[in-house]
């Protein structure tokens, strides 16, 4: 702090000089750790502060100069890394255009797509570097012909001679038959027996899907946490959604007049919905217990109905998959190949329409309607994928049915010589079908619709309108595609490559659809909370993919005829074998301990303790905030009482004085402020001093003098609240 001036002043004692306050402020800015570019001042002022912090004329030591250079380099590297993490700077111009035309809600779909593309490319990189490159480098020898085991299979496994066999190359590509002996599928990977000195391809193949899933989990979690709305962290009565919405609803990146008009409509709809929600909530608080029970029953009614529909839908998928696998030799073989994906697509198309219709029959608040429909769509989508994989497991691995055909080898060896390849092919077909469906919908439904609606002008066409670009539906589609990719990581290691290509093409298809063939949705789409929700759905999909993988890797016998794990009872058995071979006894004992109960129980107890501490800390913080909030209200009331007392004690103000009481501090001419044009905002004490006429001082700070604003501002500050407010 700088010493007090010796010049006597006629100000009241205790009130600091304006120059002192300014110097104190400069000192505070000079010593604070905030980087210069984060300070809210004009460029000239920032330059001044920068020079104060690092005087240019002073002989700088060599290490200081080196440090400054290092910091610049660090900053550049960090910026480059951030750009890379955000998606390699890919499609920046397109995203900028979309944001300008449609706002951040629709833009968030495209950034999510870019994020998924990045995840897929990283997975592919991991797989390639861990498995493919060593395989190509080391060229392990073929293990030789497989064990000659006899099969006792009921019925003939030969194909009937009269079946129409499609030998079309395209068909082989679409069903995956063309790639059966390539590295796309599990069956083509072969290595010799394990040894401790050579790089273990088996271990790499086993661990790379797990590593990919872990990587995607961390990436998604990180993105989710960044966008988490803070209000859920604090206690009750602490939601300020509407005020935050008023200040943050305008998308500053919009640059087209039509988009601005649409955005204004969206904002007004949103405000009306929010106010309506608030009113409904008030009404609900005043309901009697009977009315509340009735309300709850009505919730149950529609949810049970929809639940039944979902159960019906997934059993349809189950039967379709079973039928397709059981009747592989039928003459309708071609159609049956794509029956399961077809049924899944049909179910996911009709489902949301039905759900929307049913939910709208009840009289729910708009937000609840949207959330309920969305939740059921997600449940349907994930359940259909789960049922598909379960029914595959049932036919191939005899899960959940009689195990006679799987007794000898642990899997249905009669029908499937290389069951991993079959599973891989099914997932491959599903992935391709999804993409083809996207393309078909874009060019065979949306485009003709737009052409017809633009061409004709009847009442029907005016009602039909162009298709709405619904972000939730599109996001669910790509999340489903990603879940399928994750499910197939073990059986079809290059599926991320396929998915990357699909995502890349989907971006351009969707961009074309959005810009040319769609209209903006009438329901506003808040980017932040829904981004969180979709990240959550992505995590659920990841979990759905990880559970079967874990089960298969740890308990299911691999094919005896193809692939890497022919002699193991389960793929995971490679790990104990390698540990026994490669690690020293101490290492083996340590790993054994880590996997045993003696380690996991204390770990679990410790994690529970940590969780309890975090939760109680959160609750204590919420209570403290509540207390502080009440304290704030009391202090302000005290302040108003004092102001009233003061106004009674002070003499009546003359005609030349401004109306209303002024505190002693306001009598003094206020210290200089840096702020361009007008007072610095903020409560006094914690930040820059209160506003007032600012002067251009000797240091050359550019501040203008808002002369006429000075006195009325102070009067407005100390407005008397009405009795009702106090």
């Amino acid at each position, binding site marked *: 702090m700088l010493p007090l001036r010796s010049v006597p002043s006629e100000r009241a004692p205790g009130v600091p000089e304006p120059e002192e306050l300014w110097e104190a402020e400069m000192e505070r800015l000079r010593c604070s750790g905030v980087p210069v*570019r984060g300070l*809210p001042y*004009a*460029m*000239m002022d920032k330059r001044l502060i*920068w020079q104060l912090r690092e005087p240019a004329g002073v002989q700088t030591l060599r290490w200081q100069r080196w440090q400054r250079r290092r910091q*610049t380099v660090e900053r550049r590297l960090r*910026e480059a890394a*951030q750009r890379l993490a955000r998606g390699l700077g890919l499609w920046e111009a397109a995203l*900028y255009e979309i944001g300008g035309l449609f706002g*951040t809600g629709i833009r968030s779909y495209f950034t999510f797509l870019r994020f998924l593309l990045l995840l897929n490319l990283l997975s592919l990189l991991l797989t390639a570097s861990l498995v493919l490159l060593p395989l190509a480098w080391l060229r392990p020898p073929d293990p030789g012909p497989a064990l000659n085991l006899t099969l006792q299979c009921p019925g003939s496994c030969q194909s009937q001679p009269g079946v129409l066999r499609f030998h079309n190359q395209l068909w082989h590509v679409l069903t995956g038959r063309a790639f059966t002996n390539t590295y796309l599928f599990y069956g083509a990977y072969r290595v010799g027996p394990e040894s401790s000195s050579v790089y273990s391809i088996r271990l790499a193949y086993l661990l790379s899907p797990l590593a990919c899933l872990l990587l995607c989990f961390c990436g998604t979690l990180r993105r989710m946490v960044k*966008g*988490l*709305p*803070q*209000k859920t962290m*604090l206690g009750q009565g602490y939601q*300020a959604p*509407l*005020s*935050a*919405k*008023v*200040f*943050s*609803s*305008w998308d*500053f*990146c*919009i*640059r087209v007049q039509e*988009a601005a008009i649409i955005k*204004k*409509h969206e904002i*007004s709809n949103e*405000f009306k919905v*929010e*106010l309506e929600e*608030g009113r409904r909530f008030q009404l609900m608080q005043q309901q009697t217990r009977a009315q509340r029970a009735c309300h709850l029953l009505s919730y149950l009614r529609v949810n049970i109905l929809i639940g039944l529909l979902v159960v019906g839908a997934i059993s349809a998928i189950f039967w379709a998959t079973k039928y397709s696998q059981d009747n592989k030799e039928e003459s309708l073989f071609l159609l049956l190949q794509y029956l399961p994906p077809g049924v899944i697509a049909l179910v996911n198309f009709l489902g949301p329409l039905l759900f929307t219709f049913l939910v709208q029959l009840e009289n729910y608040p708009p937000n609840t309607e949207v959330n309920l429909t969305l939740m059921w769509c997600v449940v349907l989508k994930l359940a259909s994928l789960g049922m598909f994989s379960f029914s595959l497991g049932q036919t191939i691995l005899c899960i959940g049915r009689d195990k006679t055909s799987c007794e000898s080898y642990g899997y249905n060896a009669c029908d499937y010589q290389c069951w991993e390849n079959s599973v891989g092919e099914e997932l491959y077909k599903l992935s391709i079908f999804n993409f083809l469906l996207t393309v078909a919908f874009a060019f065979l439904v949306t485009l003709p619709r737009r052409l017809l609606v633009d061409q004709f002008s009847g009442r029907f066409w005016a009602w039909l309108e162009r298709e709405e670009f619904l972000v939730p539906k599109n996001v669910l589609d790509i999340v489903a595609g990603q879940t399928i990719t994750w499910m197939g990581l073990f059986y079809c290691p290059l599926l991320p490559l396929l998915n990357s290509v699909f995502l890349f093409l989907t971006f351009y298809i969707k961009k074309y659809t959005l810009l040319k063939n769609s209209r903006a949705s009438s329901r506003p789409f808040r*980017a*932040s909370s829904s981004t969180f929700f979709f990240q959550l759905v992505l995590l659920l999909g990841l979990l759905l993919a990880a559970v079967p993988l874990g089960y298969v890797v740890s308990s299911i016998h691999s094919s005896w005829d193809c692939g890497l794990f022919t002699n193991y009872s389960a793929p995971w058995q490679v790990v104990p074998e390698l540990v026994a071979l490669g690690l020293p006894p101490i290492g083996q004992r340590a790993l054994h301990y880590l996997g045993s109960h003696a380690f996991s129980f204390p770990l679990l107890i410790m994690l529970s303790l940590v969780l309890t501490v975090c939760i109680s800390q959160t609750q204590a913080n919420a209570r403290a905030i509540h207390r502080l*909030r009440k304290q*704030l*209200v009391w202090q*302000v009331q005290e302040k108003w009482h004092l102001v009233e007392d003061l106004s009674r004690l002070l003499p009546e103000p003359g005609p030349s004085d401004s109306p209303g009481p002024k505190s002693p501090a306001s009598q003094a001419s206020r210290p200089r402020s840096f702020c*361009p*044009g007008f*007072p610095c*905002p*903020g*409560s006094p004490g*914690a930040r820059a001093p209160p*506003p007032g006429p600012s002067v251009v001082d000797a240091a050359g700070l*550019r501040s*203008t003098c808002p002369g006429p*604003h000075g006195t009325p*501002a102070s009067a*407005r*500050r100390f407005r008397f*609240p009405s009795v009702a407010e106090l």
Partner: protein
Amino acid sequence: MGQCLRYQMHWEDLEEYQALTFLTRNEILCIHDTFLKLCPPGKYYKEATLTMDQVSSLPALRVNPFRDRICRVFSHKGVFSFEDVLGMASVFSEQACPSLKIEYAFRIYDFNENGFIDEEDLQRIILRLLNSDDMSEDLLMDLTNHVLSESDLDNDNMLSFSEFEHAMAKSPDFMNSFRIHFWGC
């Protein structure tokens, strides 16, 4: 409009601007180009100024309902120098820190410039956000009262900076929406 003297920006100036703003090198050079195209002929870019109308009619700000407030907040004595434009672009850039954005958002929304966002400011904000045919007196009063009852913690019928900051800190939407790309190149 004519062009300023075509001076290349010095390397030290570029470095200094990079240290003092959140803009990347390419963005600064882009803004430099745009500025040179708009400013009056025959002047050095560091001394040239743009009027508020010229900045308001930039494509990035043309349809913004708060463009007059943005121009007022970032200009000095009614004109924009090159550094003022850089300062504005820095606050609205993607890499800017939240505290800086919140600070300037508060200044932009404070229409009557008394250091607080009071009822009158709120009403003006809401009027600008909605179309005139969606507007009604009831909606306006309702919204204003709602916002004040939620965010006004000390019950003085105005939002001080700390209350505003507190409300904005709980909204990740704000960081996404308070962003303008001035570069169009």
